[in-house]
């Protein structure tokens, strides 16, 4: 595994029983105690994730808002300092180059938190379109990132800081949070990728081991556990959060993926992909991402074919056995004519053609 990239937390995974795998060139823990256990712990108590592999790109300068307005689909002028926004960066055809959060740190000072595997691609795309009065920097190496997710997240994190975390609302952040015994200021946002309440914390790479340990210790009585990529995937899947490379790609548009809320075709700026996406919004996309439940026994997986009347009509984008619901569930990209709740489709699970039924998403919503 010597050629794989490591996060600053790599040296401590073993101590917590972490089992590492190659995830897009990174040596990351797929699990600690076990995927199902970690999944339930995050839904019921709290889970701590190392997400330091995520990329960070800084966009600064007097024309940074205009620049971002042109590059992304959401309306960047709507966010205030201390606010984060989910958005897409698309190509001319409306395919997704990446989906990410934009943090507005200050006027003319933004931080893009992007998918690890797309960092280079995003950076190059931004550089390619760069205008005067804008600086674009890949600052990924400066940041480590932890995610603390679950109903007990706030209670646990509050033990470690004087900042009143209640004041950090959903998709808001505070960029000067200090933790007891941890050097330096951190950015704490109320965001996540699990469908639970919780926080994402950005901090210097040199402090992340200390904070990781401090959070796990502070959360002991609440039953906190470290969580790996396996449960991160089942958690996000149940909550209907898209995974780039499966549910989104350069060949899948946000409209097809049912994520039109982050595509502001009515904003004035001619952003890249606006024409294609406007047409899809107005006329309706020819394909749609739907959720389905297996009726026959079998687990759908990414890439399996979807059939109707023995003809392939699409493919499974994500699928697993849902730990929370105990059902075999998936999402699939299929022609819009079949994309109705209750419609029966077939899934080719290796050698077997198995029945499934389209159901509403997200599969899970917290109460």
């Amino acid at each position, binding site marked *: 595994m010597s050629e794989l990239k490591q996060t600053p937390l790599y040296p401590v995974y073993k101590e917590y029983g972490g*089992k590492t795998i190659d995830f897009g060139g990174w040596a990351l823990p*797929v*699990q600690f105690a*076990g*995927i*199902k*256990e970690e999944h339930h712990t995050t839904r019921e108590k709290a889970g701590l994730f190392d997400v330091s592999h995520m990329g960070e790109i800084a966009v600064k300068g007097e024309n940074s808002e205009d620049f971002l307005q042109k590059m992304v689909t959401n309306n960047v002028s709507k966010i205030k300092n201390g606010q984060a926004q989910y958005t897409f960066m698309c190509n001319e055809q409306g395919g997704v180059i990446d989906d990410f959060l934009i943090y507005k740190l200050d006027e003319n000072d933004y931080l893009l938190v992007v998918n690890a595997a797309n960092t280079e691609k995003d950076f190059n795309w931004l550089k390619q379109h760069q205008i005067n009065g804008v600086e674009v920097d890949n600052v990924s190496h400066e940041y480590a990132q932890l995610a603390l997710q679950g109903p007990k997240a706030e209670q646990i994190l509050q033990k470690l800081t004087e900042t009143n975390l209640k004041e950090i609302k959903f998709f808001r952040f505070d960029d000067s949070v200090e933790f007891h015994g941890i050097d330096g200021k951190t950015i704490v946002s109320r965001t996540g990728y699990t469908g639970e309440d919780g926080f994402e914390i950005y901090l210097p790479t040199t402090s992340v081991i200390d904070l990781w340990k401090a959070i796990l210790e502070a959360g002991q009585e609440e039953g906190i556990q470290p969580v790996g990529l*396996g449960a991160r*995937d*089942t958690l996000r899947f149940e909550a209907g959060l898209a995974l780039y490379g499966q549910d989104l790609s350069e060949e899948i548009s946000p409209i097809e993926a049912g994520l039109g809320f982050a595509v502001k075709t009515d904003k004035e700026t001619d952003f890249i992909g606006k024409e294609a996406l406007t047409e899809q919004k107005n006329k309706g996309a020819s394909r749609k991402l739907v959720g389905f439940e297996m009726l026959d*026994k*079998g*687990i759908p*997986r990414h890439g399996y074919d979807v059939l109707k009347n023995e003809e392939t009509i699409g493919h499974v984008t994500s699928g*697993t*056995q849902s*730990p929370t619901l105990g059902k*075999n569930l998936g999402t699939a990209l299929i022609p819009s004519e079949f994309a109705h709740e209750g419609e029966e489709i077939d899934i080719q699970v*290796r050698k077997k053609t198995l029945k499934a039924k389209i159901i509403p998403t997200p599969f899970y919503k917290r109460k």
Partner: protein
Amino acid sequence: MNLPKDLRYSKEHEWVKDEDGKVRIGITEFAQDELGDIVFVELPEVGDELELDEPFGSVESVKTVSELYAPVSGKVVEVNEELEDSPELVNESPYEGAWMVVVELDDSSQLEELMDADAYQKMTEEEE
């Protein structure tokens, strides 16, 4: 690692127990640990023929699907139906509760081709 001495082992991480011309087959503790939480087990039916080194079923964890490769050739005479509703047995009891099939051997000398516990352990150590 728990590797009962009375079992034989395949390179695909199955154990095989000699029961007088028949053999009982399951996957090893090492295999279940590598796979993680098992959520689905697909097995052949009684009467099906197993062919050496060919897939005869699959084991699915939360993350992945793994084929089961036949460690011997022969006819399936018993299938562990319990695994359909309780796949987690593969994690909890790989050598007892989670046996998968019983096969009537075409040729009992096949067992000699399989590894003993020491040889299997050596192989897994090299894999890690």
